């Protein structure tokens, strides 16, 4: 019976055998539960005639934000005597209603209005009320090794003392405390050193560079012991040997972490972006770089998604908006309403028949890793058939875009210089062909100073014309020639940006592209026709199925280039971006400038993951040359899979302490098993501190685990996602009393939490920016609320200096409901007097925002109407509903900056345009041969709607829907291997021939799962869903204070086959990577199945 869902399927509605057995057992012990009457019902019993359904009373509801996944849907928590009894959607939030209710709706009227949230959101109570939550600081029991899961509880104060001061903490010899790496504490000195390092890096000549290093050693002779390596001062000070890494982190908490690390002076603050959809973000960054003050800069780590509610055609690629991808409650009603009510068509590219694909017009089960090839096939068809938006693409600058009523423009017409081999390089500048002299222009950052502006060049009717990208004067508008092929101008041979893209797309015939993708060419043509048959109301919407490949960056680039061909950016039904209200006080008039008040050091030096820095400028390049020991990432950041392995390799330097917040790289990373031997080894990582609500798959290796508050107990500003056209800022705020105990920091009581840990360390070490006067002119930072209420006040004030977009004041009724709804919260969490004192005059506005769980732009403000001056071609009409919060600037479909970046492996220039790179390949670029070597199945992952990657295996309601995952494979593949539904198989791979997780504590977790056959899977591909197959997280036995606590085996069922994922053959301790965009690679491993 165990292979069936426990309760929630119709065929199993009766009593299963297991349930029957449990019932029999329960009958004997049932009396034990008598007397456990929740307090509320006692009141109900006492008060006849009390409300029959108290949950609709607004005074029993708190509006906050879900965190069961990262979508951040607004929720309302319904309270019954202080217990969260039910969670539903917050109707003020666009995530849960379509359209969402007007922001001005009185809170008193919203009691019975609730929006839609997903099953995980509905089950959130079980994440918070999880018996395995930690309530004391756990210290690895002295005398035991990391990962042995034997712990002792110690007081918060003692724990802070130990992590700060170090000492012989485990009977293994001295452990460096955080104090030890806090050596550079003088902000002025740090600034001087950083300037000297900048000069060293800027110097291109080897000998002069070395001379500058010697000069550094002379200048700072007395401070050299502060440096990690005086011979390589560009590594920075020893402060960098403290690394802070996080998994799920949102704003507000991010602000306290930034403040803390700024005060400490480390450059090592790294998130987890690359394990999610890294190359989506970093291709987005490369596409959004702007030419400012003479260089390409200011690229934003972001991406676009489709405004699918207004699309007439959508193509979901490696994306399943019904199951994930930010986020189902927002996007599903838009898609189902558009498709059923308005005849919208959509197609899905995915090897697996996802729930989205199940409802699609067309399902295209392309070969994984060929997403870029499919995009180029479509680009080829669109260009060959001239189905692109000529007017949009011909606009070479802002003035031309304005004339076309387009918010964005591209370099489609800009001329690019070719090298001797005909390879595209940098853009042609007007001065290079004597077309126009350079101009002195004031710097945007400092108008007193100037830089030389050199015009770009496009051809207009065959004649070169200078292009100023941001010119607004209509006379400066340039509508260039789209296709310029090997034209000689002066000493140069040039092509236009669009020509380069066309050439890339014409690398293969449509038939050949179809063959590469494993698709029928007629399907590709049909999709291409639809894509270009709806004006701007068509979109290719992509997600991690596109980005998490070794060729991820260029796959993403190709799809965004395809979208540019129809110019759908910032158009209703096209691609849109996220917009959030600023709350950090950086807008004029906002009351509290959080960043200004910081007043701490600017950290400098190379990060442990070597991001945002060019290898060839570094002094390590002089030492090591090509290939670098590990890859460098000048175009990306937050490269999660690099953190622990780089610590393991001590490259570029050894690390003394790692603090990990709400992250589990071991579980979540592909080949996360490679992290275990490093984390388990105090020689490689002397001090490992985790801030985690549980003993998780990674925190089980920590020396200390500090418990944290959960999402219904804490503050965060959740931000938005690219699928949301409205400007929003959801505010997560405490809804229930925390299950963790209170501690005292700076004399104030506060829940044991991330905030308490950072403030406690700051207090112990005397870090600036915390404690009395921590906010300078804005007062003390002695309680977490001192930051959070200030942020809400800024948000409530708005973004206009005169306060004209402030929210209204809460009236008496709103204030009454606000206070009454929080009557169950302890003073350490909610104290109306404390909050009001921090908020000052803005208090009634703060209440107004919190009553609604954040700030949300009204539905009608999300779009605006514009009229096209002329239809640009027969395919593009004059209906121009556009995003009211637009991207609104240049989109790089040719990237000079990317071209100008070199691989740290080969020293070669990167390619600056959309191109298909066959994979999978190693970080060095070498193609892998695993498929040819007999590993006959390609492994991919997906996510069931009822699990989040690593943190919902505690949700028993969800487990009842699906107690375990399975190995999903095509029926024919199964038959060919003699496998049947329910057979158990082990997954083995080239880098994990044993098919198991070695937990380095004497235990092994084999990667054995149950076969589920389906017609809905591309042959040759197998899949497992993420979120199952745990081996910690309350699922195994552990010991605290010599008391054995039994794990719950329901939490560890199923298979987690990340350890089968391919280890990079050059790096040897890290998953395959996208060397440009930084993605951790989930979909490029070939495996074999062994029947067990």
């Amino acid at each position, binding site marked *: 019976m165990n292979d069936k869902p426990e309760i929630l399927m119709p065929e199993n509605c009766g009593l299963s055998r297991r349930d029957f057995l449990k019932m029999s057992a329960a009958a004997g012990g049932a009396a034990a539960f008598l007397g456990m009457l929740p307090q509320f019902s006692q009141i109900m019993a006492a008060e006849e005639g009390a409300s029959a*359904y108290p949950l*609709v009373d607004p005074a029993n509801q708190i509006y906050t934000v879900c965190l069961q996944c990262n979508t951040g849907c607004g929720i309302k928590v319904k309270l019954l005597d202080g217990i969260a009894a039910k969670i539903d959607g917050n109707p003020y939030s666009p995530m849960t209603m379509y359209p969402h209710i007007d922001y001005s709706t009185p809170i008193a009227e919203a009691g019975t209005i609730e929006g839609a949230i997903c099953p995980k959101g509905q089950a959130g109570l079980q994440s918070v009320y999880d018996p395995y939550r930690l309530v004391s600081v756990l210290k690895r029991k002295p005398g035991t090794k990391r990962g042995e899961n034997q712990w002792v509880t110690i007081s918060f104060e003692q724990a802070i003392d130990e992590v700060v001061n170090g000492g012989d903490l485990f009977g293994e010899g001295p452990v460096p405390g955080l104090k030890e790496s806090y050596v550079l504490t003088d902000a002025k000195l740090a600034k001087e050193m950083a300037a000297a390092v900048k000069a060293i890096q800027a110097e291109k000549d080897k000998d002069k560079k070395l001379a500058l290093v010697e000069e550094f050693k002379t200048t700072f002779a007395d401070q050299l012991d502060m440096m990690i390596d005086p011979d390589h001062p560009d590594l920075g000070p020893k402060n960098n040997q403290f690394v802070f890494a996080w998994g799920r982190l949102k704003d507000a908490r991010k602000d306290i972490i930034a403040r803390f690390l700024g005060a400490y002076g480390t450059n090592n603050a790294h998130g987890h972006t690359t394990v999610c959809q890294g190359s989506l973000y970093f291709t987005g960054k490369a596409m959004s770089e702007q030419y400012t003050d003479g260089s390409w800069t200011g690229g934003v780590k972001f991406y676009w998604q489709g405004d699918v509610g207004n699309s007439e055609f959508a193509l979901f690629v490696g994306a399943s908006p019904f199951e994930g991808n930010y986020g189902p409650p927002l996007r599903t009603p838009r898609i189902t309403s558009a498709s059923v009510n308005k005849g919208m068509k959509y197609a899905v590219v995915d090897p697996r028949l996802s729930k989205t694909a199940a409802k699609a017009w067309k399902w295209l089960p392309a070969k994984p890793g060929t997403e870029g090839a499919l995009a180029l096939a479509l680009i080829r068809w669109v260009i060959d058939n001239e189905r692109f938006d000529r007017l949009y693409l011909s606009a070479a600058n802002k003035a031309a875009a304005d004339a076309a009523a387009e918010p964005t423009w591209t370099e489609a017409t800009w001329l690019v210089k070719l090298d001797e081999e005909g390879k595209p390089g940098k853009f042609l500048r007007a001065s290079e062909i004597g077309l126009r002299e350079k101009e002195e222009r004031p710097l945007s950052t400092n108008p007193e100073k100037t830089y030389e502006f050199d015009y770009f060049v496009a051809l207009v009717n065959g004649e070169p014309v200078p292009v100023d990208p941001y010119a607004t004067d209509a006379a400066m508008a340039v509508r260039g020639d789209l296709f310029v092929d090997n034209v000689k101008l002066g000493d140069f041979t040039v092509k236009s940006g669009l020509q380069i893209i066309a050439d890339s797309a014409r690398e293969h015939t449509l038939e050949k592209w179809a063959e590469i993708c494993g698709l029928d060419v007629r399907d590709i043509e049909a999709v291409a026709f639809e894509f270009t048959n709806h004006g701007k109301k068509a979109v290719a919407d992509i997600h991690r199925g596109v980005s998490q490949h070794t060729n991820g960056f260029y796959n993403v680039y190709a799809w965004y280039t395809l979208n540019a061909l129809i110019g759908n950016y910032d158009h209703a039904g096209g691609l849109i971006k996220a917009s959030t209200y600023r709350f950090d006080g950086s807008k004029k008039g906002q009351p509290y400038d959080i960043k200004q008040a910081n007043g701490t050091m600017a950290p400098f030096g190379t990060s442990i993951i070597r991001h945002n820095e060019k290898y060839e400028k570094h002094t390590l390049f002089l030492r090591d040359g090509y290939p670098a020991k590990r890859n460098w990432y000048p175009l990306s950041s937050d490269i999660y899979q690099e953190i622990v392995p780089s610590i393991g390799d001590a490259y570029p330097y050894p690390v003394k302490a790692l603090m990990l917040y709400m992250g589990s790289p071991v579980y979540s990373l592909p080949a996360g098993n490679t992290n275990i031997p490093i984390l388990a080894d105090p020689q490689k990582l002397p001090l490992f501190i985790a801030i985690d609500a549980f003993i998780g798959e990674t925190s089980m290796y920590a020396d200390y685990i500090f418990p944290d508050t959960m999402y219904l107990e804490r503050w965060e500003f959740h931000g938005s996602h690219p699928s949301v056209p409205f400007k929003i800022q959801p505010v997560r705020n405490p809804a229930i009393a925390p299950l963790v105990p209170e501690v005292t920091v700076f004399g104030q009581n506060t829940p044991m939490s991330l905030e308490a840990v950072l403030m406690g360390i700051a207090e112990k070490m005397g870090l600036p920016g915390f404690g009395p006067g921590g906010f300078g002119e804005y007062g003390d930072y002695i309680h977490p609320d001192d930051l959070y209420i200030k942020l809400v006040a800024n948000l409530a004030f708005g973004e206009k200096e005169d306060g004209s977009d402030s929210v209204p004041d809460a009236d008496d009724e709103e204030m009454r409901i606000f206070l009454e709804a929080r009557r169950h919260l302890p003073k350490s969490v909610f104290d109306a007097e404390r909050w009001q004192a921090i908020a000052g005059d803005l208090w009634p506005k703060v209440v107004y925002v919190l009553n609604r769980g954040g700030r949300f732009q009204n539905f009608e403000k999300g779009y605006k109407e514009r009229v096209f001056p002329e239809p640009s071609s027969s395919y593009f009409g004059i209906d121009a509903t556009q995003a009211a919060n637009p991207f609104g600037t240049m989109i790089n479909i040719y990237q000079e900056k990317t071209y100008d970046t070199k691989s740290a492996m080969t020293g070669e220039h990167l390619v600056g345009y959309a191109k298909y790179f066959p994979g999978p390949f190693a970080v060095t670029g070498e193609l892998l041969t695993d498929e040819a070597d007999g590993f006959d199945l390609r492994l991919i992952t997906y996510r069931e709607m009822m699990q989040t990657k690593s943190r919902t295996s505690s949700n028993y309601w969800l487990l009842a829907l699906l107690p375990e995952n399975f190995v999903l494979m095509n029926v024919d593949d199964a038959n060919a291997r003699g496998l049947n539904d329910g057979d158990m198989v082990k997954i083995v791979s080239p880098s994990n021939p044993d098919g198991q997780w070695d937990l380095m504590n004497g235990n092994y977790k084999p990667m054995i799962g149950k076969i589920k056959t389906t017609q809905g899977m591309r042959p040759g591909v197998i899949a497992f869903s993420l979120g199952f197959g745990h081996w910690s997280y309350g699922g195994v036995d552990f010991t605290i204070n010599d008391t054995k606590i039994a794990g719950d085996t329901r939490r560890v069922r199923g298979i987690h086959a990340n350890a089968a994922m391919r280890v990079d053959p050059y790096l040897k301790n890290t998953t395959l990577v996208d060397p440009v965009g930084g993605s951790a690679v989930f979909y490029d491993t070939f495996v074999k199945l062994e029947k067990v």
Partner: protein
Amino acid sequence: MTERVDRRNFLRGLGSAIGAALAADNFDRLAAVPEQALAAYEAALAQADEANAEDLDTIERMRRELVRALQKPPSERRWVMVIDLRKCIGCHACTIACVAENKLPPGVVYRPVLDEEFGTYPNVTRRFTPRPCMQCDNPPCTPVCPVTATYKNEEGVVVVDYDQCIGCRACLTACPYGARTSDFGLTYTEEMPVAEGLIAGRTTTETYERAANFEYSQPHPRVERTSPIGNARKCHFCLHRVKVGELPACVTTCIGRATMFGDANDPDSLVAEMVNKPNVMRLKEELGTEPRVYYLV
């Protein structure tokens, strides 16, 4: 089987004593609408006719229609549910929302969703079918009840009188849709460690599961040997919510907007519009059960 029924009777004997102390006897009394909820109620009433239905989320449109229907005498309302299978994405939010709303224990489910695959690669599709109680106008489950604990109420919803139910399971067998399950008093947290002071532990965390549900407009904390433990349980269209102007939990949380609810006697309602579509069908129509749950296909 005999043993089980005996146990049920035994439990009921104890439970009713506690139950009497907890709540009024007349479970079918009209809910007292909380004062604060009245504000929402009145606001919705004022808005019920003013806005263009096209400009509203269907959830909000249906809520306003619900408030309108509540102005009529109960016998003049015809609650129906319409499920558009083209919009159902099989997310199970409804299943879990129902579990959370009604505090359903292991073994009890009101609203499962079927997930079926059809076809041969690459021409494959999946169908997701939510299956609540059909609230039949000719229900096979009610006549078999030996103590008339289950019946169609004034508004046409098939209800269970927990105080009368003896837990014999006859209705479970009689229902052709498998819409009824028995509550054996389990909880999801019952085997968890307590480990006080070391981890949060069961005692601290089981509160949400033991907190009262409000089925039939009465608080039912989850206390051993007290209803609904030992009873047959089933979907009741969340009457306790409906009575205070709130849609059933499965309706408000339907992210595909596949599930619709309302008064089919109101010709302007969304459900009235839908039940007359040519693509409407009902499950096992041939049995003559006359379900009040309609599917659009």
